[in-house]
């Protein structure tokens, strides 16, 4: 698919990341690949599996050629049997390994809900801590070029509802690497949902292995007037929106949640306390999704700081259409964030 036609390769916004001393500009996919390479190198329990991890496209580049270096026992292709293979990965994890299971799209995770939700998420609790499941499941949200209803779902809203799973959505090359390494090191099942559009970015990434703490958000831009809580690719959209808002005289703060479960309560409560206005931007559906939980949490716990309704920018509650004119209408972006932000600023004045 000519993806390059729908989103050019660019450098990611300059988010002022905390950088190591060996930073280089690397592509998003390469950041993940490096994390995997290092994890495979440093920990013999780690292995990488998934339909196509060893193929010429190498999972959009994220697993490219790892099998050549680490062998096909540790980096292996799988049959198309997502639920069974998730259970197999769980079993391997229980048996002391650290599987990283790759999927092209989150849509395919719907086949694995039984093993992820009925099993992986409950195994530690249900047995009073006797067993645990250090498993990483990775999938990349599709968008554009007619990916349509069954190949473009952003399913974080589902996983956010499940106790016992950790849920990660990076937005920068730096975090993509650091959160992958943190997820592999975690003793619990972790789901990483990437966004295809982030793969068009390059950013500064240290060469040595490092971990970005799970459960901690980060402020991508400080501001005083409105808090934009953004997830995954929407962080980039929020960044562009903030630039536009600046010319309106609106100083937006951008919080990148990075981890959705458990999410960083403190960082959003204190940003709300500062600005009094909150907009939440997600790549998934609105109803019952990520924006719902964050809004409800803030309304419950930060009510007295709220000067305006909590605004939610998310996909409309319909399946993704294929046609490009409809995609255009379907996906929210910087423009929607700008419009909603201006509206929020109008409140209580």
């Amino acid at each position, binding site marked *: 698919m000519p993806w390059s*036609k729908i989103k050019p390769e660019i450098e990611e916004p300059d988010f002022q990341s905390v950088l190591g001393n060996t930073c280089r500009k690397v592509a998003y996919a390469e950041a993940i690949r490096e994390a995997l390479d290092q994890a495979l190198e440093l920990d013999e329990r780690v292995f990488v599996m998934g*339909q*196509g991890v060893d193929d*010429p496209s190498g999972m959009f580049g994220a697993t490219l050629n790892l099998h050549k270096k680490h062998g096909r026992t540790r980096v292996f292709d799988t049959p*198309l049997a997502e639920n*069974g293979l998730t259970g197999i990965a769980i079993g391997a994890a229980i048996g002391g390994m650290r599987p990283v299971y790759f999927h092209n799209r989150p849509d395919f995770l719907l086949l694995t809900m039984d093993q992820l939700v009925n099993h992986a998420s409950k195994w530690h609790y249900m047995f009073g801590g006797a067993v645990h499941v250090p498993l990483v499941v990775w999938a990349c949200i599709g968008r554009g070029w*007619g*990916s349509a209803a069954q*190949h473009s779902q952003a399913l974080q809203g589902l996983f956010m509802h499940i106790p016992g799973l950790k849920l990660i959505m990076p937005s920068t090359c730096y975090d993509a690497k650091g959160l992958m390494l943190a997820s592999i090191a975690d003793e619990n099942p972790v789901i990483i949902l990437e966004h295809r559009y982030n793969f068009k970015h390059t950013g500064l990434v240290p060469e040595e292995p490092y971990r970005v703490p799970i459960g901690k958000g980060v402020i991508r831009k400080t501001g005083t007037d409105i808090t934009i809580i953004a997830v995954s690719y929407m962080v980039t959209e929020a960044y562009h929106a903030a630039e536009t808002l600046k010319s309106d005289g609106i100083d937006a703060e951008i919080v990148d949640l990075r981890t959705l479960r458990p999410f960083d309560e403190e960082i959003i409560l204190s940003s709300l306390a500062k600005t009094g206005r909150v907009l939440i931007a997600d790549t998934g559906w609105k109803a019952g999704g990520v924006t719902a939980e964050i809004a409800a949490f803030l309304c419950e716990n930060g009510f007295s700081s709220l000067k305006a309704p909590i605004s939610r920018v998310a996909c409309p509650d319909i399946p993704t259409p294929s*046609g490009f004119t409809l995609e255009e209408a379907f996906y929210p972006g910087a423009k929607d964030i700008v419009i909603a932000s201006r509206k929020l600023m109008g409140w209580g004045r």
Partner: protein
Amino acid sequence: MKDSVSPDKLRQLYYEMLRIRRVQLKIESLYHLDDMKTPIHMYIGQEAIAAGVCAHLGKEDYISSNHRGHGHYLAKGGSLKRLVAELYCRETGCSKGRGGSMHLVDTSVGHMGSSSIVGGGIPIGTGLSLSIQMKGQGRVSVVFFGDGAAEEGVLYESVNFAILKQLPVIYIYENNQYAVCSQISARQRGEIIFHQTNPADMFVKVVDGNSVLDVYQAAGMAVERARAGDGPSFIECKTYRLRGHAGAGSDVHLGYRPSEEISLWEARCPVADFRKRLLQNGDMTAGDDEFMEKEIADEIDEAFLFAQTSPLPKGEEVEKYLFRG
């Protein structure tokens, strides 16, 4: 039986394959223009299967298709214009520009939709056969799926149910030996277990999927059985896709399959082979062939023109069709 196929039928089978091939070559030739903003999965090399199977089906019979569905759609009688319009994301497309190449449908000819979730259409096609049985309709439901889909648990679950209820369903297993870039040997060992089914429970047959007559013959038996209430069938068609997994053109450069392998199968092209045979046996004249090519080319031109000049869906209507009623 092969000999009992009339020259008319032979030419019809050829026409069907040729038409599928020509449509796809046209799509391929224009894809680089980026006007068809939809993923495409070419059926080139597998035409004999859709053509051979669907030759036995009427409009009232059902098929259930997958991401590689252009051939199934056309062989079943789906509107070419609406197919092309769907690739161009038009409101006049068979799915009104909501589905794209992987989600074709034409209920007027029994094409009830295709799933791009690998294996997803297998139980749905099985369920269509349940509706046939419950209504006593004497129809048939055909499920097309690949060797990747054959690994999904729903196949096992569906076949068990079809056998249990002796449903009028025919599983057409299109084994092209690859799932994306993954060779079947990386995913399965030996032949699929359903070949071992007790013949009293399910009719099983393995055929050369590049021979339209072999497919035609096996499918004929399966359809006859299904209509007679004699239960399900499972037909493996051994075949090969001549193009890349997705997009247009060859994928030799990717290096995941030997170029000799591709050449070998190119030499076994189901369309060219059958053409040669018909000409040799005198079942078709060069004139017939030319006429067909012309007719198909005209139809294709017309379809592309229709598609390219059709209106695009309006953004305001993006929420339409969520629910019926």
